């Protein structure tokens, strides 16, 4: 592949991710609404929200780092999307691999943490302390799952992982080859996405105590954009590792939407977990299942 094609891919991949991510945000809100017997937002609501947030007249900045933090939060995910192969586009899959992706995915969290830190709001800092603790909680099963997948496929290159699965049809999918690891990944997924019932650090309902407390206008908009990417990344990564990726968009899209929708639909039914309970939960069941999955997979 020549350089110009690659550059076009690198431009397209985050753009596609953003559009799909918007759809995921809409879908989540629809699921939450339907479970609560409401109708939910209209199709273009996520776009309206973003336009509204970016266009607001009152936008309070607490300093340069506050702004850079938001830029890092969005930018980190923009970069992460180029490491995630999708049908027709491999991007930088062979130059980064899944470990690099897992670490690039931590940059947005760090950016958000820095931005909130500059706001000098004690409630914001409490939110960050919770967010980073949650990251410690879910990253341990998440990294176990990544290790297992990389070991079983014998490669960290996500494009190769997809190719290996697709050679053997559905029976070659990670889900069939290592069901326990796939289950552990599915258990950890809602926490990776930072959604119900693990969203105490974002605390959208009681906004005065989360990282969002000082985020107005485009700052909030930046985090909204980040959320689109976050859902997309989690969905695509899981699909890539366990559901055979996608040869065509027509098969790929239902998979990634299902990966986000299924745990969401179940998780929405649970009450919100406290931070220490997130750790307790994440370090118990997904890790246990993951270790068993590893033992089976490496046998």
């Amino acid at each position, binding site marked *: 592949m020549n350089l110009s094609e690659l550059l076009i891919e690198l431009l397209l991949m985050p753009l596609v991710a953003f559009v799909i991510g918007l759809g995921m945000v809409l879908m989540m809100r629809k699921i939450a609404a339907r479970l609560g017997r409401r109708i939910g937002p209209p199709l273009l609501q996520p776009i309206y929200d973003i336009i509204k947030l970016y266009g607001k007249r009152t936008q309070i900045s607490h300093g340069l780092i506050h702004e850079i933090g938001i830029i890092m939060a969005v930018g980190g995910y923009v970069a992460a999307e180029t490491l995630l192969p999708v049908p027709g586009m491999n991007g930088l899959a062979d130059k980064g691999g899944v*470990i690099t992706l897992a*670490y690039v995915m931590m940059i947005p969290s760090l950016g958000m943490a820095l931005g909130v830190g500059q706001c000098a709001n004690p409630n914001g800092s409490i939110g960050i302390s919770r967010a980073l603790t949650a990251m410690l909680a879910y*990253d341990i099963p998440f990294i176990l799952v990544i290790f297992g997948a990389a070991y079983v496929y014998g490669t960290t290159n996500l494009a190769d992982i997809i190719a290996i699965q697709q050679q053997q049809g559905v029976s070659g999918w990670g889900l069939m080859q290592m069901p326990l690891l796939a289950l552990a990944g599915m258990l950890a997924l809602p926490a990776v996405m930072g959604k119900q019932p693990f969203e105490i650090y974002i605390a959208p309902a009681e906004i005065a105590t989360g990282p969002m407390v000082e985020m107005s206008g485009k700052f909030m908009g930046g985090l909204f954009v980040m959320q689109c990417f976050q859902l997309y990344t989690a969905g695509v990564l899981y699909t890539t590792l366990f559901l055979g990726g996608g040869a065509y968009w027509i098969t790929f899209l239902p998979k990634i939407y299902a990966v986000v929708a299924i745990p969401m639909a179940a998780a929405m039914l649970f009450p919100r977990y406290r931070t220490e309970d997130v750790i307790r939960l994440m370090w118990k069941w997904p890790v246990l299942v993951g270790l068993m999955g590893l033992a089976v997979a490496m046998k």
Partner: protein
Amino acid sequence: MTPLDQLLLLSALTVVVPLFTGNRRITGPLATLLYTGQGLLLLRMAGLGYGSETPVSSAVSLQVLGLELHWRFDALSWFFALITIGAGLLSSWFASGEWAQRYRDSGSSLRLFHAALALNVFTMLVLLASGELLSLFIGWELVSWASFLMMSLGSNTALRYAMRYVTYAFAGAMAVLMGLVLVYTRTGSFEFQAFRDAVPSMDADTVWLLFGLFAAGFGVKMALLPFHLWQAKAYAETPGPGAAFLGAISSRMGLFAMIVVLVQIIGVARLVELPVPFTFLSGRDLLAWVAVFTIIFPTFTALRQHDARRLLAWHGIGQGGYMLLGILIADDLGSAGGLMHVFNHATYQAVLFMSVTAVIHRTGTSDLNKLGGLVARMPLSFLAMLIGIIGLAGLPPMNGFVSKWLVYRALILEGSPLLFLGAVIGTLGTILSVYKLIHNTFLGQLRLEHVDIEEAPSSMLWPMMILSTVVFVTGYFPGLVLDWIASVQAAVGLPVLAHHLGGVHIDKGGLDMIWVVSVLLAGFGVGALVFLSGNRSKRVHQLDNYAGGHFLTADTRYQYSDNFYPGLMHLIGPWYRKSFRWLEGGFVSTVDTVSQLMQGLYRHTHPAFYLLAVVVFALSWVMGGD
């Protein structure tokens, strides 16, 4: 006179010069100049770092009791020497300007500080140049005492922990000495080659014994578990630039000696053949697990510190675990990761200590409970710390990521999920801990007494900026360092890593940092464009804050660092049991009891009774003899 002789001579001169120039202002710049000279002489041997396999020998050799002591530099020595002299140069530069003035005005001796720093560099170079086991041991002892001198310059706490270090170091040195004697009785020589030739014919017990003695002896300097208790406080309390130097390279001398003996001479393959009784583990696995626990425990101890310097010093111990772990994997990727981490760690750890020292210089404290909100006052120091913590946490785009990536990749290839998990837990704990550091120093609430402080002086900023640049550039182009690593691997007898400027190319998933970092920077660019597409924001003053419906005035203090992660500590807090301190305490009391007992027996209690017992014994022996 070979280039090595010139280097050692200049290094010795650097020790002497401060003794003459004394407390004058010129001492610092002069020492810095001399370190630059050392650096240039080291560059004359740069061939070693780029594949030249003939070591540079010293013309000097000593005959002692029929044994020949000689010194030489190979690629491994050159690589470590590069870091040592670099750290010495920048620490001394950092200590040349306003810092020196303040230090002198506080009644401390600048002469002693610079002499101690130079002595550390000199003794380390002597150790690195050692050509056989005896000169290795002599260098080892010199380094121990030199670093003791440096640590003892600090406060009383530092002195107490430095004394503790000396106790540990002495025990370690005894272990090493026993190892040497054992080797000598088997081979009749102290030469590396003779030792290496003898290893295949040694039985498993002997190799176990040698392995244990050398690993424990050198492990003390590296602060491997359970010998880690001395290091954090001793380093943390050393005068700022000294702490930067010690934190960057000093304890890596243990790693150097371990590489020489365990990897270069005994060989990791031999360690794999040593079974640990009643387990599935081999000797190598045992040490690898020690390395992983050295990553985890000190990192989570760091998480609980509320003094910036102690926090960093504890992380320094933890990061040593990654180096040892990588080297013990002993394939091309893992060992490259471990060796590269030595360089990377030196760069970001020095930057972090310098940045903290700059904050202390301006505010007078490193207590995280008493700082906060300095980012607008000291933006460049903030930048240096930011780059440093990203490196320490091992996130892209800084160099710490590359070395850790190599270690992770090797662990995946090898199929060691639990070691991998341990390494990752350490990284996650580091992220939590370093965020606390930067949050409580530079972000959060600004204290009223810090409203008028200024950026650190340029004599401090220059070394910090240079090091930050190195941290970023070697993350962007890791091939620059991997060139040296490949030479080291060849010299030590490890598989050589095939690499390019951007990283490594492996069929099964490589790494190209040039692309990864470029795309990350481009991502930030896109993020900035998205951000700027919004409506104009209004910047409010740093002290203009509110929470919970109330305006927060600056005299209401709400910045805290104790129990910064209450959710986590709620769960893992009870796991901190100070077991190692308890273990050390138990050991000390045992030794104390035994020595009192012996003292009592010999000197106080019943001399007449013992005399009688001896006489009766002698008589019975004489009479029973026939």
